[in-house]
């Protein structure tokens, strides 16, 4: 019997599951990360404090713990009927947003202060200064670290597989329960993860190259 050929549709389901979890979490992490980075450099002290707390809390909490909170505490006290995909995306997305925020913030710090001052001096608001002047110039330094952050995210979504989500990790569990050779299962699962992470790597290489040329 052949693990892969016998269970092709299951593998495909797991692969797509991992892709969906990664994609949705990356989107959440990206949007939140940029907003939190903005908070951290904003002139409003409460926002700065909120941003610092967000990053410190999420970056220093084990992701498994976040999953436990998301699946066992959140439904009890806040939202009783969120589906497990949404909860997993929130856990992975929030967690990763802290890393994205730090990457974006260090990118912001590489843009000379005079750029923001010039923008403010012609009457731009803080949000305009960030989105029109500072962030576009920060992109080049933000993109390389984002690549590793999103590769880490891909692997982290495996935890979601242990929490009621069908992804590659979940499929490996199912198949080993079905009695297939665990070494062979892992070989294929690893290969599938490699495809995703390699694609992310390539995508960011391309992006970096684009930004290089645009200079």
């Amino acid at each position, binding site marked *: 019997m052949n693990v892969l050929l016998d269970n092709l549709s299951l593998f495909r389901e797991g692969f797509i599951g991992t892709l969906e979890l990664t994609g949705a979490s990356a989107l959440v992490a990206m949007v939140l990360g940029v907003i939190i980075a903005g908070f951290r450099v904003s002139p409003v002290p409460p926002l700065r404090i909120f941003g610092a707390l967000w990053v410190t809390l999420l970056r220093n909490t084990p992701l498994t713990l976040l999953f436990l909170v998301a699946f066992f505490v959140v439904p009890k006290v806040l939202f009783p009927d969120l589906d497990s995909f949404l909860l997993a995306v929130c856990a992975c997305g929030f967690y990763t947003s802290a890393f994205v925020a730090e990457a974006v913030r260090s990118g912001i710090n590489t843009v000379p202060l005079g750029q923001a*001052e*010039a923008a*403010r*001096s*012609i*009457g731009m*608001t*803080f949000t305009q200064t960030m989105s029109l002047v500072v962030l576009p*110039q920060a992109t080049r330094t933000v993109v390389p670290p984002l690549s590793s952050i999103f590769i880490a995210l891909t692997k982290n979504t495996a935890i979601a597989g242990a929490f009621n989500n069908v992804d590659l990790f979940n499929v490996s569990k199912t198949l080993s329960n079905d009695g297939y050779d665990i070494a062979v299962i892992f070989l294929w699962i690893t290969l599938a993860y490699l495809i995703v992470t390699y694609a992310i790597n390539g995508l960011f290489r391309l992006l970096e190259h684009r930004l290089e040329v645009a200079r």
Partner: protein
Amino acid sequence: MAEVSVTKDAAPAADELVALKNVNKHFGALHVLQDIDLTIAAGEVVVVIGPSGSGKSTLCRAINRLETVESGTITIDGKPLPQEGKELARLRADVGMVFQSFNLFAHKTVLENVMLGQVKVRKVEKAAAAQKARALLDRVGVGTQADKYPAQLSGGQQQRVAIARALAMDPKVMLFDEPTSALDPEMINEVLEVMQQLARDGMTMIVVTHEMGFARSAANRVVFMADGRIVEQATPDEFFNNPRSDRAKDFLSKILHH
């Protein structure tokens, strides 16, 4: 039959465009602005000079609130500077600022630099903004560089673009913080000429500079600062020929020998 009271209230004089009253600021233990009182009339050109570290830049930056002050009031055209936020942004648009290090937006072309504020802050149509930008670039003599990026321009050209960028907002007053200090000697004049022209056209200007030639020919008033205080204010003639304070005499003897 009601009696109409015509007593004048404490409203600022009509032509009092910028007014600082009793302004104080510290950087830690350093008292950089000490009880600064300064009013600038519409159309006036005021040159601020003084030794390094005397607080000239801080004064300039306080006027459009790039630096906050601890006490005292700063008003622009009668309106006190508001707290950080949308309203402050609107007020800043009326106060042009030219920096020593140009600070052109590095990721935008020269033309885009001059258009950005018009489009995003003043909400001017793109076509109209471009037209105005080109006219301003011609006026400061860099019209042919419109499609280049700032890094491709000489310092003098960049600074003239920066002046055009500030002018594009139709500011009520322009602040210059040592606009020629970062320039090679042969480029200083091209920038000073643009500023001279601006002064002749009636722009209200506050200029921090070490260019005494410019102060003599373009300024209505020289403000001499030392150690965070305004030590002396006079017409350029008076100030350069007959400085009253010892600090000013000392300062002038040092710089005029070079």
